[in-house]
């Protein structure tokens, strides 16, 4: 799964529990103090404090359900720092209670990560039970452990489910080769998963497999077949089309993906097995197909 768990971004030195501060600005200043103990930032500490205080005065922050979120973004800053403060006593700002403060310092190059971070914090704010647990965390480690235990993934990029082609066709194992051929012809696509009567995926078949039905086993031992100009068995394919079933020529699934699998895994499999299409399967049902053209179109030229 190509996603990063929120807890992996947290740093216990940047989490302050039971803060005695009584105002948001004091909390922010303390968190800034923490940042400067551990990191180098593109602005002096004083400037940063001045900057954040100005923002707070302008009410340039977000408060939802006891959680306050404030941030500073720099040009040309390549990192993302999260400071967290939990005041011992509830702070009231314009009739809104603040019990956890998230303070994020980042650059403009981490847009998607930043947006996912915002989503995650929003999710935390909506989860009353989790929020209570976090507020009453015994220490920084406990806080991180609580986040770890819940499912907060920062999806960094798209997964297989986002890119796959959902409009798939498949064929029953008992269909005749003629039906399969018609399907390939009609859909103008050379790959097709094979299913049983309950629509469970049991195999796959390509146009080449269909053509090879007229190409018997013994031909596979030749180095080349150039000595033949015409080949009777190939012509005979037309006759066996209605007698042979898909299950006679299908292959077992060489590989498959789940919708939550990472795109990188799909590329890895395509390269390893030198194939164009990979079925996306969930609970034995085919829910999509991802091909390298999907990846090329939607990511490389997306």
């Amino acid at each position, binding site marked *: 799964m190509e996603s990063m768990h929120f807890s992996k971004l947290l740093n216990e030195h940047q989490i302050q529990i039971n803060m005695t501060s009584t105002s948001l600005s004091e909390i922010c200043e303390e968190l800034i103090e923490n940042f400067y103990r551990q990191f180098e930032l593109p602005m002096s500490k004083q400037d940063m404090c001045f900057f954040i205080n100005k923002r707070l005065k302008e009410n340039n922050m977000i408060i939802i359900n006891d959680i306050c979120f404030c941030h500073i973004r720099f040009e040309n800053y390549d990192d993302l720092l999260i400071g967290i403060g939990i005041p011992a006593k509830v702070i009231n700002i314009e009739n809104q209670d603040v019990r956890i403060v998230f303070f994020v310092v980042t650059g403009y190059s981490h847009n998607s990560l930043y947006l996912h971070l915002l989503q995650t914090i929003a999710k935390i704010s909506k989860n009353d039970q989790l929020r209570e647990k976090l507020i009453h965390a015994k220490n920084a480690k406990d806080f991180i452990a609580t986040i770890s235990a819940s499912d907060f993934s920062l999806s960094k990029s798209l997964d297989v489910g986002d890119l796959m082609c959902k409009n798939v066709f498949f064929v029953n194992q008992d269909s005749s080769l003629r039906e399969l051929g018609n399907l390939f012809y009609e859909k103008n696509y050379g790959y097709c998963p094979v299913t049983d009567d309950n629509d469970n995926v049991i195999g796959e078949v390509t146009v080449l497999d269909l053509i090879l039905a007229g190409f*018997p*086993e*013994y*031909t*596979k*031992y*030749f*180095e*080349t077949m*150039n*000595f*033949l*100009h015409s080949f*009777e*068995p190939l012509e005979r394919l037309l006759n066996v089309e209605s007698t042979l079933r898909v299950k006679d020529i299908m292959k077992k699934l060489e590989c498959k993906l789940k919708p939550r699998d990472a795109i990188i895994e799909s590329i890895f499999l395509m390269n390893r097995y030198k194939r164009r299409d990979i079925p996306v399967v969930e609970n034995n049902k085919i829910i999509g197909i991802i091909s390298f053209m999907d990846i090329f179109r939607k990511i490389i030229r997306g």
Partner: protein
Amino acid sequence: MLQLQEIIALSVFVLCFILFTNSKLNSVLVALCGGFSMIVFHIISQEKAFSEYVDWNVIFLLIGMMLMIGVIKTTGLFEYIALRTAKIAKGEPVRILIMLFLTTAFLSAFLDNVTTVIIITPISILIAVELGISPLPFVISQAIGSNIGGTATLIGDPPNLMIGSAAHLSFLDFVYNLTPVIIIEVLVGALFFYIFFRKRLVVQNWRKAKILEFDEKQQITDKGLMIFSIVILVLFVVFLFFQDYFKIHAATVAIACALILMIRNRKNIHTEEFFKNEIEWDSIFFFIGLFILVGGVDQAGIIDKISNWLIALTNGNIRATSVIFVWGFGIASGIINNIPFVATMIPLLNKMSIALGAQNVLPLWWSLALGSCLGGNGTLIGASANIISAGISKKSGFPISFWTFTKYGMIITIINLAISSVYVYFRYF
């Protein structure tokens, strides 16, 4: 009384042989487990097993030949020969059958039997399909031909390889002692196949014309390499002929030729992939396991005992023993893989050579070679070549039942063994 070591060694050995007869078990694993059990139970030390009992001359001769074939087969030489044969026979099925039988026997004298049938069987199935007749006569006769032809030379069949290496018999010795009788066996075999199948193989003229349409020259993918390969093959055989004169072992000749071919074709060879694909590691490890297994029995002193017992039993009558060997190993090889038998017989015959004199025991080596190689034709499962070619045939939609094969195989084998026993009975005494 048997000592503990002897009991263990004998039990492992007998168990392995019983397991070898079960075709569902992987015989390579059986051989390796048996062999390494001998080391684990301290019946034989690892040093001794590796240095004295594993016959590296056999192993590297096998590897060298596999590598040579790996290069040569890419040139299309063998397919060219087979297709050319069919055209020379003018598409006449009986003629094709006999000529391909002879070609297979000839190729098999220089190539491994299995390699030969893997090359020839698919081509003959294709020819039969084009002719609109059943490929079974072709497949069966070629498997049998490869087993007979392989007996002719030192390098034709693994039992010969092992015997030659262990008894210090040269390529020339094999040519002198086995090739004449095998030529007779092959010709008689051809006659019988003619009688068996001549009435069944009737085809229309237009189908024969299709065979003449074959453009076999197209199979030659690299003419330069093909000519080079033929030169190296000839040199290989020439060197084997004079191996005593050059004081050089067969394995070295094979590896040297393989290396020359690989260097010539280096642009198309990635050694890692080439070694993986062309060397049949399964067979190599089977041999290694078997050599150690037999080494264990020998170290435990059992071979000595059997040897003494055998000498007493035969009363030193080598003439009668050699005929018994031909039939005994002939029949046994039809039932299970002949290689374990031969591996066991090698130290035994070596012990008898010491007791009775190497020259006196010589006929027994030839009887062992004839019996174990020719006996493989007795049943469908008697030789790897039979199993492999029947497998190719089955996958191509033409299954061969055990009895269909065995019917013909049995007749040919009985004739072969009869000729062989007459031969050893009169030639050496």
